[in-house]
């Protein structure tokens, strides 16, 4: 009961923050969606980080470490430490500048103006929305699962907060926070949330180490000494091709609509300075303890039914109830911090890129546009909640969809780079890359649903020397050239599409080039 009370106090604080932000808000879309581009340096870092960190950073990382070992940190976390700050540094700052100068509130609005074409923006909107929706659904599912897991009654082994109520609680609090507070509400809540989940890992390690019967070194030495578990403390079962491929996945970060919106919301470009330096350290502070505890969980708990619950099990078994509640709030923070921005991003895209762009703002006015955005927030969250309930048992489908989404957004990054840095890039090049990414995702999903693990889809040559160009790996995912992840051909294909089709088509107008490249203030290197 104590963890449940602690978590509900936390949720009440988040809702309160939303209501305070509502009182400070103005009735226009720039204020609602971007907090009037007024986010300061420290808040910008805390909020950008919360936007990008999901429950996967805590629960998924420890679950993956339990299954696959310490290599998960190098594959997923340290590759992000390298790529994400670089993309924020090179792309995020330029996005901020074009947003500030030309009033763009979404990536789609920038693409439309940069290439003087409605359709390219609409195509990118469609693809981005399709890739973002599963992410929102899985966030709500994650919230329901965590609340049910934390609130299990030791006597009855039944959760005090059932899955459906947990999903509803997360959905209602996120909706209330964003509905009333918009970007300001989400960002203010992020300050509290990020501090909470940054503290999570360190506190969890300290508490669990104190309660475990053996020392950390005893458990790790035991794992290293056993042939069956040795792979958990090395990377001997992790294919180097997959390890390398994963370095392309964090390219997705800057292409997520909610991350781009955060870049638009900074008050000053100097806010990016501290953010890019602190970002790798913040990733380490969250991921390192969680990966370590995931591996440790294998040694301390043995086989468990749901590896993604390893951290919850460790907390349940080795920490006092009140602390488990606070740590649970840390996990929920990660869920809600990113979910709020996903909901807001969907609402912004729909309101600005569809409703306002196709005449809604002229017809109904700026004031009504904010009402429309709020209505959209309620509808989209309600749909996500109903899907999360209806398809609870099929959550694997959404997990796969999210994996596709990461590859898809990563493969769209060449389009953004071309828009910002290459004068000669054309709308046709961008459209070709967008359609290529969409087609590749559909093809991958189709192949994965019609073939089984181990099937070869396309091979060059025969026998032992054959090159398996596309095949389904042992986990059932489509793989490329003897083991690379599909993000590799997707990114390469997208680069080629932008490059070749742009060169083969008429350049953009001189006016558009002058607008984005020839002004003194926003002149990205050509």
């Amino acid at each position, binding site marked *: 009961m104590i963890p449940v009370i602690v978590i509900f106090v936390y949720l009440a604080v988040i809702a309160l923050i939303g209501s305070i932000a509502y009182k400070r808000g103005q009735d226009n879309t720039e204020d609602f969606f971007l907090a009037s581009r007024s986010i300061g340096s420290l808040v910008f870092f805390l909020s950008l980080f919360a936007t990008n960190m999901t429950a996967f950073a805590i629960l998924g990382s420890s679950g993956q470490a339990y299954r696959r070992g310490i290599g998960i940190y*190098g594959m997923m976390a340290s590759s992000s*430490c390298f790529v994400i700050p670089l993309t924020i540094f090179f792309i995020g700052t330029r996005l901020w500048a074009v947003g500030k100068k030309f009033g763009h*509130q979404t990536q789609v*609005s920038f693409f*439309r103006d940069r290439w003087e074409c*409605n359709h390219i923006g609409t195509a990118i909107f469609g693809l981005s929305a399709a890739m973002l929706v599963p992410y929102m659904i899985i966030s709500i599912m994650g919230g329901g699962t965590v609340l049910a897991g934390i609130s299990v009654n030791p006597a009855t082994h039944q959760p005090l907060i059932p899955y459906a109520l947990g999903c509803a609680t997360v959905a209602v609090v996120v909706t209330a926070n964003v509905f009333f507070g918009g970007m300001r509400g989400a960002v203010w809540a992020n300050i509290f949330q990020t501090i909470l989940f940054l503290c999570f890992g360190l506190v969890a390690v300290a508490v669990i180490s104190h309660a475990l019967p053996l020392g950390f070194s005893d458990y790790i030495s035991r794992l290293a000494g056993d042939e069956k578990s040795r792979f958990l403390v090395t*990377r001997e079962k992790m294919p180097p091709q997959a390890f390398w491929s994963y370095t392309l996945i964090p390219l997705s970060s800057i292409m997520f609509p909610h991350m781009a919106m955060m870049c638009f919301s900074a008050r000053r470009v100097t806010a990016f300075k501290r953010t890019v330096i602190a970002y790798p350290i913040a990733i380490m502070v969250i991921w390192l303890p969680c990966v370590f505890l995931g591996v440790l969980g294998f040694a301390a708990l043995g086989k468990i039914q749901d590896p993604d619950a390893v951290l919850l099990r460790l907390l349940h078994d080795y920490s006092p109830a009140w602390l488990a509640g606070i740590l649970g709030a840390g996990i929920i923070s990660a869920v809600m911090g990113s979910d709020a921005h996903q909901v807001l991003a969907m609402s912004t895209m729909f309101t600005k890129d569809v409703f306002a762009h196709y005449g809604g703002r002229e017809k109904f006015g700026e004031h009504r546009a904010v009402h429309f955005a709020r209505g959209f927030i309620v509808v989209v969250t309600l749909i996500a909640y109903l899907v999360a309930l209806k398809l609870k048992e099929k959550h694997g489908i959404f997990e796969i969809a999210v994996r596709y989404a990461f590859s898809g957004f990563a493969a769209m990054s060449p389009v953004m780079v071309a828009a910002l840095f290459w004068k000669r890039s054309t709308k046709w090049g961008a459209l070709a890359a967008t359609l290529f990414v969409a087609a590749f995702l559909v093809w991958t999903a189709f192949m994965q649903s019609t073939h089984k693990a181990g099937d070869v889809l396309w091979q060059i040559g025969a026998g032992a020397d054959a090159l398996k160009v596309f095949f389904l790996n042992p986990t059932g995912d489509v793989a490329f050239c003897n083991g690379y992840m599909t993000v590799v051909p997707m990114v390469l294909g997208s680069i080629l599409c932008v490059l070749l089709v742009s060169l083969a088509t008429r350049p953009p107008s001189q006016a558009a080039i002058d607008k984005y490249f020839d002004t003194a*203030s926003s002149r990205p290197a050509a």
Partner: protein
Amino acid sequence: MKEFLLFLLIALVYLAHQDLWNWGKSAPLVFGFLPAGLAYHAGYSVLCAVMMAVLVKAAWPKRLETEENAGGDGDKDSAARS
């Protein structure tokens, strides 16, 4: 020359991520409990922060700071209608 050195820095840090020499190793346990591969990548994360500090110092796009005073002039996303 400065651009080349910065590019080289980024390339070297990227290559340092692919630590094939640690693949099958668990020893030594750093601080008595962190397997070698995990400790290496924790250190790598700190290296990335240092790299970003160098980039901020040496390659910060100062010209963008002029935008701070320019201010947004409203939503012009409908300008693209054509």
